């Protein structure tokens, strides 16, 4: 690990000012991703600005405005606390399920909600500084495109990068249409819809998201919805715990009897960002909640998949996982997976 300076503050404006002052400074939250990357010499900050003393840890109900009835989650709060908060367990159990499907208890106890959104890809070439990687070193090429790309994208990838975004939490947030609240370097607050938060790789895979330098995530807001009774998070992975998704699906159904009023479906492990399965959603709207319809909906989304040499299986797996998540959601949030 390279030598670095450590700074800590309890003021959000200090934090952003410090960051803007030093172009090589990084925010530090739980450190579960950033410190790993520093050890691997992938991230090379010379200063860390610790955010964990900021007063941005609470989870609370939103009682006014546009998102009335929703919940706001502090960016510096721990993943564990968000997952287990009563408001979230009751109103947004999908988020609880997704967070608890990620990492391990120890890591979730350290990891923060803001840090989780910003975790970087797990592409092993990105981690290996001896390998070409456009995301780590723009212009060097993409080792994964013709390489070991079993874990990689089937939607929205570019010639420059085929990586997938690894967060589970964000897949649920995407299905829940969350907004990410950011304090800019100039002190202004901006709200970014989760669908616009992360980027597809395009020609600039080094940019994971649409934050600007100095932006500090302060909270995540989830608007009120009617999915609580019928939601599911299904994560398919190489072992039953403590592995990143091959494919994951967050699904929420709003039902009127057996009729689907609205369905929200987001996929993980398939793209450089949470992948909203809009074609599946459109297909299901107004239809009966049947296995046949679930299958047809999954088909509608997956026809557009573009596979790489080692990840062809993700097409069928993606379909099955959508169906599985919808079946479980239909049976009810508390039914066993």
């Amino acid at each position, binding site marked *: 690990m390279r030598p670095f300076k450590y700074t800590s503050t309890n003021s959000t404006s200090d934090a952003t000012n410090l960051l803007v002052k030093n172009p090589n400074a990084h925010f530090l939250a739980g450190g579960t991703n950033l410190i790993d990357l520093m050890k691997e010499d992938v991230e090379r900050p010379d200063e860390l600005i610790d955010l964990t003393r900021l007063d941005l840890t609470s989870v609370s109900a939103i009682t006014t405005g546009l998102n009335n009835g929703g919940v706001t989650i502090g960016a510096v709060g721990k993943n564990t606390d968000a997952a287990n908060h009563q408001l979230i367990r009751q109103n947004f159990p999908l988020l609880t399920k997704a967070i608890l499907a990620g990492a391990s208890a120890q890591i979730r106890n350290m990891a923060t909600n803001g840090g989780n959104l910003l975790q970087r890809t797990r592409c092993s070439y990105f981690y290996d500084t001896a390998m070409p990687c456009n995301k780590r070193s723009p212009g060097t090429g993409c080792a994964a495109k013709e390489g070991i790309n079993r874990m990689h994208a089937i939607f929205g990838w570019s010639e420059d990068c085929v990586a997938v975004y690894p967060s589970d939490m964000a897949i649920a947030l995407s299905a829940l249409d969350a907004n990410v609240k950011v304090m800019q370097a100039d002190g202004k607050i901006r709200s970014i819809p989760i669908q616009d938060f992360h980027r597809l790789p395009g020609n600039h895979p080094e940019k994971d998201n649409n934050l600007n330098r100095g932006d500090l995530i302060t909270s995540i807001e989830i608007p009120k919805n009617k999915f609580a009774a019928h939601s599911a998070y*299904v994560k398919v992975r190489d072992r039953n715990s403590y592995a990143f998704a091959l494919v994951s699906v967050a699904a929420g159904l709003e039902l009127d009897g057996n009729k689907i009023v609205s369905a929200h479906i987001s996929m993980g492990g398939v793209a450089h960002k949470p992948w909203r399965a809009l074609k599946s959603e459109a297909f299901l709207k107004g239809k009966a909640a049947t296995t046949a319809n679930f299958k047809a909906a999954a088909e509608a989304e997956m026809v557009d998949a573009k596979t790489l040499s080692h990840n062809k299986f993700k097409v069928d797996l993606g379909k099955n996982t959508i169906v599985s998540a919808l079946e479980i959601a239909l049976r009810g949030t508390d039914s066993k997976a």
Partner: protein
Amino acid sequence: MEEKNKSIGKAVNRIDGILKITGKATYATDYPAKNMAFAVIFKSTIAAGTITNIDTTLAEKAKGVLTVITHKNAPKLNEKGGIRGGALLQSPEILFYGQNIGVVVAETFEQATHAAHLIKVDYQKKEGKTDFEKLAPSAATPKGKELADLVRGDAKGTLNTAAIKVEEIYETPIEHHHPMEPHSTIAVWEDDKVILYNGSQIINGAQTAAAETLNLKPEQVRIVSPFIGGGFGSKGGQWANLILTAVAAKAISRPVKLALTRQQMFNSVGLRQQNIQKISLGATKEGKLISLAHETTTQTAIDNEFLEPCGDCSKIMYEVPNSLISYKVAPMNIILPTYTRGPGKSTGSFALESAMDELAHKLKMDPIELRLKNEPQKDPSNGKPWSSRKTVECLKEGAKAFGWEKRKPTPGTNKIGDDLIGYGVACGTYPARQRDSSAIVKLTKSGANVLATVEIAASDLGTGTNTILAQTAADGLGISLEYITVKLGDSNLPPAAGSVGSVGAASFANAVNDACTKITDELLVKSGKQFFVRPTAYQLMVSENISEFQTRVDAKAPKEADQYSAHSFNANFAEVRVNALTGMVKVTRFLAVTGAGKILNPKTARSQIIGGNIWGIGMALSEESVIDPRWGNFATRSFGDYHVPSNLDVGKLDAMFINEDDKIPNKMGVKGIGEVGIVGVAAAIANAIFNATGKRIRKLPTTPDKLI
């Protein structure tokens, strides 16, 4: 001694358990040394070629750096001294990706790590041999004689005449040992002698290899290794990191600590090679085997040969008149493969026991019945009688305990919700051997008590060797456990075999037992008296009022052992649940039934077996190291990519032992259990997956993509 007073055979807690859970057990890097410096290895980023320039200027100038050692300034070492895998900085030539190319030594680990990042290396690259799939067709006959073709009768000819045939290819990936404790060493020089604190499965082997490589005499090298955080074969032989620590310490005339990182473990300390195994079985309509061929194609390092003997189980498991066991090997630019838990048997049994399941399915016969039908009365490979073989009991009692009768013979018919349920069985075996070991027993009278110290250069991988040796001494001397001290893990102690190939318990315990018998004999002589009932050493020390007494033995296996075929045998039963939509597998129940001679301590023995089972679950479901052939590097670089089983992958595990009184392989009747616990496990699980889903897995690991 009365059976009920005996310590052997009881589920005694580990005598070092408290030390371990309180962090007081001293593993290799836990030794304090004054003025210690820290070394970090850096590695090649090509698989084949030559280093043309290595620029260490920035690193040498970095804060805290004491020295940088590369092939340009490393001392001349003996590369044939017995260190595995080369990479001793003796030349600029690169033979595999991740070969050691230098060591940075600094005041702190962090400084050394940082400086290692500042080193610039230029290479002249050569085309490497890195793609096993492409190289496998041109694999050649191995040089090692023990892996020459073994031919009985005419396997290929009779196969053609068989009523029922199975001819399939089974593939297993590269696996890594990844013990919890990465390989690490502290080297402390005193004049021309060096102490190496270093996890070593074979204490004397490590001593000899280090001495010869460093051009020293064995007595100039001391290995200290009382506690080891696992090894699974990777600490059986020693690797360059041990030597480079000694070299670094010598270079700066200070103690040096060098611990490999988890990432470095992928190309520093061997691996289990990738195997392509072709099994051809021919049987009569009644299910009698008439032909068995087991042909293995595998890989090795470019400059050195190591193969695990995948055909070993096939040599002895079944009565079959025509048999062929053969090997082909492709040299590659990879680190030298090495012994890995159940070497050859865990992978070989996956192939053989999957094929047997396929045969049973074709015959519409219960797979247990098929095995019982082909049970050999003597060792089919050499005609020797078995010292004992309890496969039949393992299968029958296991079936009863597991509820085998609930298995639905037709695959895919046992369903609960989205889950498919399946049962599988597979057998396994591992040789039982005693190897030369010496031991000293020292007795000291202390008031009304007699204190005993047992000294032996044995090693304890974490398996409980300490504890079983204390139990052995307690019974052999008539002294209760709390008055016994076991000293092991130090090359200054009497030389012993290693904790490898399941020889540890038999070799060490028999040496200690012999020493106890001998010291009692000598005390009897010293007393000059005759007794009706043979007194214990304890009684003699007390009655004759002897304050101190000691003896030493050099124990050997009984001569007759050679005339028999001695092995442990097991039967493994697996129940799996496979999600029909996602392809995720969970091993909900697993039972291993083992006939392994005398079980010295059922508690530590159970841990050994279920530990082997858990690695077998990993082997069946998730463990795989993947090489990117374009560079020859591992694309799986951490525990994030190399998936050892998590708790959720492991259901209810049970270990049962079949009572076996077999004094042929050694006087104590100990057969060893370290290796056999993993043998047959992957096949039992793969067979259960077939029973659940109707999908036959012939390529491990069984990740979800293979089942959807």
